[in-house]
Each structure stands twice: as C-alpha cells, then as structure tokens.
C-alpha cells in the first residue's frame, strides 16, 4: 500500500513537472474569454468574423467567446459572475445604472490610462462616453448609439389618407382614423413593461425636455412635476383612444413587434435597432417604412430634435483579468469593428468616427434615422437603463399600472419620485 502511494506521488510530481515546463515554453500564448449577448443571426456572425480576423493578426492570442441571451445575461449571469469577478476578460454590459454596481464592487477595469495610451479619444464620437463614466473614470468602450423614433407603415398611411403626424393632435387624429378602420394604430407589448417605457420615456423628453429629465434621473431634480405627469397622461390618453393592440398587457414585446413587421399595424415607436427588422426580406415591410420623430407636444419643452436614446451598450474589461493589455486591445478592436458592421446591417448608429462606408451597404431605414438625428440637440436614455435596482421595478410597475388603470398619472409621478429618491439615498 505504502509503495503504491509513493509510486503515485512520484508520478504526480513527474507529471506536474512536465506540465510546468510545457507551459513555460508556450508562455506567449494568451487566452481571453469574451462574453457577449449575440448568440444567433447576423450579430453572431459579426462577432465570429472579428474573432477570426483578430486571431489571425495575433497568433499568440486565443479568444474564447461565450454568447448568452441578453435578458438572462443582464439580470442573472453578469450579477453573479461579477460578484466573484469571474466574468469574461472582455465583456458586454450596459452602462448607466446597470454597470454601476459592478464598478462599485471593483469588478470593472478603469480604462483612462489605456484610452490615452491608444489615443482613442480622437476616434470616439463626442458624448458617447457619458454613461460608461463613473466618478470621473471611464470604464467602458461605447459600442453603439440608439434613438427612439416612430416607425410608420407608409402603405397603411396612404391607404387611409393619413399624414405622418408631427404634432400630438395629428397623432391622436391618426389613432382615431386607424382605429375606426379596424387597423391597430400603434403596436405595444405591455407585458414587457420596458416596451411601455419606450413611449412614456420619449413623451417625457417632449414634455419636460431632455435636460430636465436627465437631471431628474440623476437625482438632481424631482420627478414629481406637471411635465412628468403629463407624459404619463398622454400615454393614458393613447391607451384610452384604443391606440394599442387588444389586450396589450398580455402581449409580449416580440409578439407586438412581429405584428408591425407583418404589416398589420400602422405605427411602432421603437429603437433604431428595429431598422434591421424593417429592411429584412423576411418581413413584409421592405420599402414601406417611413421614420419620424415622436410628434411634438404643445407647450412641451422638448422639440422634434430631442430624442430618447443615447449610448448604453459598452464593452468592458474585467478588473481581475491576467492580461489587461491584450484584453483592452481586443476590446477596442472588437468595439470599433462592431460599431461599423452593426451600422451596415441596420442594427444601430455608430458610436465611433467611421471611415468611408458605402451607404449602399447600409440599411435604408437606418440611414433615414441617421439623417433624422443629424441635428439632434438632446438625448435621454431609457429610464430602466439609467436607473438601478428597485427603482427599475418601481418604474415597470408604475408603467403597467398606467395601462391597467390601477394608477393615475399623478400617482405615477409620485411613485417615480419616491423610487429615484430612494435609489440615490442608498448610496
């Protein structure tokens, strides 16, 4: 028995010796884990393409990608991994309220030195770093921009002789006309509360103006104002006028969006990411979509050049990575490449100064959005990405309450004020 043990010990020692010498030989080999949220379709293709390019350029670096479904990733995978800093060396994350916890917990690498070293500031579009910046330090590379716009099915507008609305009165007239003709005016999947927020958040930009909403979301001004109440009231008005599909509270965002893509619905207020769906040959909308800013509200403080949207998608580097230089280099390359390719396929607006791009390659709907926002004067992020923790749930519940009729616009403003105040009181 003892002999046996001795033999085994000797063997193990021998083996481990062999292993160390082997790893010493291949010291240059670096493996980087890359966590992202694009498991399928064209986005996955873009990621795979760049990994192949990068690995060819850097033979000593091996990229190990893991793709997750976005919601599960943001709500479960990342919080758990970040608590032990075991997320990928390079990982995708929302900025704003979402990454704040991780930054506070020291799970994210501060990038300022690297940005200076690589001279990155010149290539980044202005203002795109805002929501990846915490306490004056930059923690994320901006991936893409989005803007909330009104997608209109021009075919249906022509059929019923309705003009694309530019004011709120015209909007309500359009809603009534479509409803009277049995066409769902505006699609909404209220089961996913964020989908309601898309509309209400954009309305708040119209009524209160982007500067005020940003201040309120930052805890520097109160949410309980007439303008916020009005943004909720306009949403309730839409609902009462029958703007949304039947039983919207039981319909998910995907189902709702699908109805628009199938050409059954007149309007859809969505993010610029919907452009790729509008131009996809799989859907019945190619060439039929007109984009417009959300109609302006009389007496509101935000004109048609203000938008909901901004930069919330960031690439970040794990603070516990063993190869920070390589990780940053890869993150930078991937971010720039994706920013450009995502623009081409109509997924999002770029966050970087891109070289010449053949516009024929780009989704026409996205070009229309880009033209629209060229002179934009202000943005407000979706509230649920700006806020964090319990405030997000409070926002969701209040939005559903508005649609279900269990909460008045006044109560909505009070609830949001309480939630935001409580959120900043925690810090």
């Amino acid at each position, binding site marked *: 028995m003892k002999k046996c043990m001795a033999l085994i010990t000797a063997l193990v020692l021998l083996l481990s010796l062999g292993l160390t010498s082997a790893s010493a030989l291949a010291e240059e080999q670096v493996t980087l884990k890359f966590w992202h949220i694009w498991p399928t379709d064209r986005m996955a293709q873009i990621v795979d393409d760049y990994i192949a390019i990068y690995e060819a350029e850097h033979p000593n670096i091996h990229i190990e990608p893991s793709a997750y479904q976005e919601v599960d990733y943001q709500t479960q995978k990342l*919080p758990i991994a970040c608590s032990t800093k075991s997320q990928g060396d390079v990982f995708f994350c929302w900025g704003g309220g979402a990454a704040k916890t991780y930054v506070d917990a020291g799970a994210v690498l501060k990038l300022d030195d690297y940005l200076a070293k690589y001279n990155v500031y010149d290539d980044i579009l202005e203002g795109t770093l805002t929501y990846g910046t915490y306490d004056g330090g930059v923690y994320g590379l901006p991936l893409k921009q989005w803007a909330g716009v009104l997608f209109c099915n021009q075919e249906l507008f022509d059929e019923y002789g309705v003009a694309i609305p530019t004011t709120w009165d015209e909007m309500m007239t359009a809603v009534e006309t479509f409803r009277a003709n049995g066409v769902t005016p505006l699609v909404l999947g209220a*089961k*996913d509360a964020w989908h309601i927020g898309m509309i209400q958040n954009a309305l708040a930009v119209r009524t209160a103006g982007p500067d005020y909403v940003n201040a309120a979301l930052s805890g520097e001004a109160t949410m309980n104002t007439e303008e916020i109440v009005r943004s909720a009231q306009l949403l309730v008005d839409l609902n009462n006028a029958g703007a949304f599909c*039947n*039983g919207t*509270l*039981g319909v998910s965002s995907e189902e709702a969006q699908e109805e628009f893509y199938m050409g059954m619905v007149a309007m859809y207020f969505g993010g610029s990411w919907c452009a790729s769906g509008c131009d996809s040959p799989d859907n019945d909308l190619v060439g039929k979509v007109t984009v417009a800013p959300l109609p302006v509200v009389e007496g509101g403080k935000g004109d048609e050049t203000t938008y909901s949207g901004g930069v919330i998608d960031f690439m970040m580097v794990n603070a516990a990575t063993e190869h920070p230089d390589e990780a940053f280099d890869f993150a930078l390359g991937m971010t720039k490449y994706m920013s450009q390719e995502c623009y081409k396929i109509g997924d999002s607006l770029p966050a970087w100064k891109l070289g010449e791009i053949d516009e024929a390659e780009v989704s026409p709907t996205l070009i229309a959005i880009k033209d629209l926002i060229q002179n934009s004067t202000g943005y407000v992020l979706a509230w649920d990405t700006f806020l*964090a923790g*319990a405030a*997000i749930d409070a926002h969701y519940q209040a939005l559903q309450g508005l649609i279900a009729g269990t909460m008045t616009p006044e109560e909505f403003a009070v609830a949001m004020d309480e939630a935001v105040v409580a959120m900043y009181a925690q810090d």
Partner: protein
Amino acid sequence: MERALRDKKAILFFVLPALIWFVAIALLPVLQSVRYSLLKWDGITQGKYVGLANYTELLGDGLFWNALWHSLILAGASVFIQLPISMLLAMILVNGVKGETLYRNIFFVPVIISSSVIANLWMKVYHPSYGLLNTLLGNLGLTAWQHEWLGSTDSALIACFVPMVWQYIGYHMLLYYSSAKAISEDILEAARVDGANKRQMVFSIIIPQIVPMIKASVIFAIIGSLKSFDMIQILTKGGPVHASEVPSLMMYINIFTTRRYGYASAIAIFIIVECLVFTLLVQRVFGRWQND
C-alpha cells in the same frame, strides 16, 4: 441483518456518500439562504447584517400576502379540481376501457412536454387578437365572452392556473392508475365474488387500497403549487400589476430585478417552511384517516 446494523462502519460506508451529497446540494444552500436572509445585500458588494428586518418587512408587505394568497388558491385548485379529475380518469382506465394504453399515454403527454413549451402554446390560445380561444368564441357568436385573458387583471390569474392544473392531471392519473393496478387480484376477485358492483369496487376496495398514493400525490400537488414559477413567468411575468404574482416569482424579481438578495432569501425561507408545514399537515390528516 442485525449484525450488519451493529457494524457502524458499514452503516457509515453506505450512508455517507448520499449524506454528503444531500448536505452539499440541499442542506448547505438552505442554511446559506438563512444567513443571506439576515443581510441587506445586493448580491455583489459586501452585505450588511440587519437581523430579522427582512422578515418583519416581509410580513408587513401587502404584495407578499397577495402573492401567497394566489399560491394557496392554486394549491386548492390542484387538490380539489386537478386530483379528482385525475382520480376519475384513473378509475375509468382501471375498469378497462377499449384502448386503455392509448388513453393512458395521451393523458400523460402534457407531463412529458416542457412547461415552457406548454406556456408558449397557451399564449397562442389566449392571444387577444388571433388566439384560439377568442377565435372560437367569435365563431360561436359569443363575442361578448371574448376577453384579454392574460392582459386583464381580473382574469390573468385564472388564465395561468388553467394550463398549470391541466398539465399535471396525467401525472397524478398515472400515479393512481399504477397503484390501483398493483392491487392484488385476490382482493378484487374476493370483492367480485361477494357481488360488489363497479361503483362499490372503486369506493370500497380500490380507493382505500391506494390511500398512501393519494397522500403522496396530495403532497406533490400542494408543494408543486406553493413553489410554482415557470409557467407564470412565461405567461404573464406575474403581471399585469401583480395580478398573477406568486411567492417564487416575487423572489425571482427581488433577486434579479431589484437586487435585494436578503429579502429574496427571506421569501425563500418562508417558502421552505411553508412547504414543510403543509407536508406535516397533510401527513396528519391522512394519518387520522388511515387510522379510522
């Protein structure tokens, strides 16, 4: 046998692997949850000890009582609607109908389909515009009965419960069926010789013989209801406005949306204790019944 039992080493040898396994994957997590439930913690940064604050907040939380009430309704529906239907089907099959095996398999199909698939199927059934249910009602001329099944606060809960109750009818049916089939032919033969008709056979012979199985299935049904999660998460996500929320869903939201691990752990502990209490209660009730 006795000698084997006296050999403590042998006992240890056979019990230890399972014991370690049980402690590692069942007992330790529970104890850990108890510890977490005493913290104010976002799951990432350092937690802060707050004593029983989470529990006192839980007991004063109207939303929690609302969710708890929903899960109790589901438990009631399971025991008093689902199980009798299962029993009826099982007794029909046991008494020998043509195509017994075929029916048995058909009834069991929902059990082997994953809950998320069933939930997605039912979402199509309930869809307000082109759902099967509303279309059917429309075709029958019952447009007044058409409804936003999952989207309205007054029907979302019931709409969730129907597929949940339906799904496991086959499971409980199979439990009853197999245990009824296992009753010794001698007993049944004796009853028949004594001139028992089919009804008497069922109520006086078969059901009393399968009481242990009924007890087990009642416990399964109640515990399954108290910790129900998947179907509701997909169908309504607990909404609209908490109308179909149950405790485990609330726990999930508290962990993954509001990031209150401590509070969520308190809910978890409550669910565990609640399940234990109900199990003991059912044991008690059946114990009395069996003694009679």
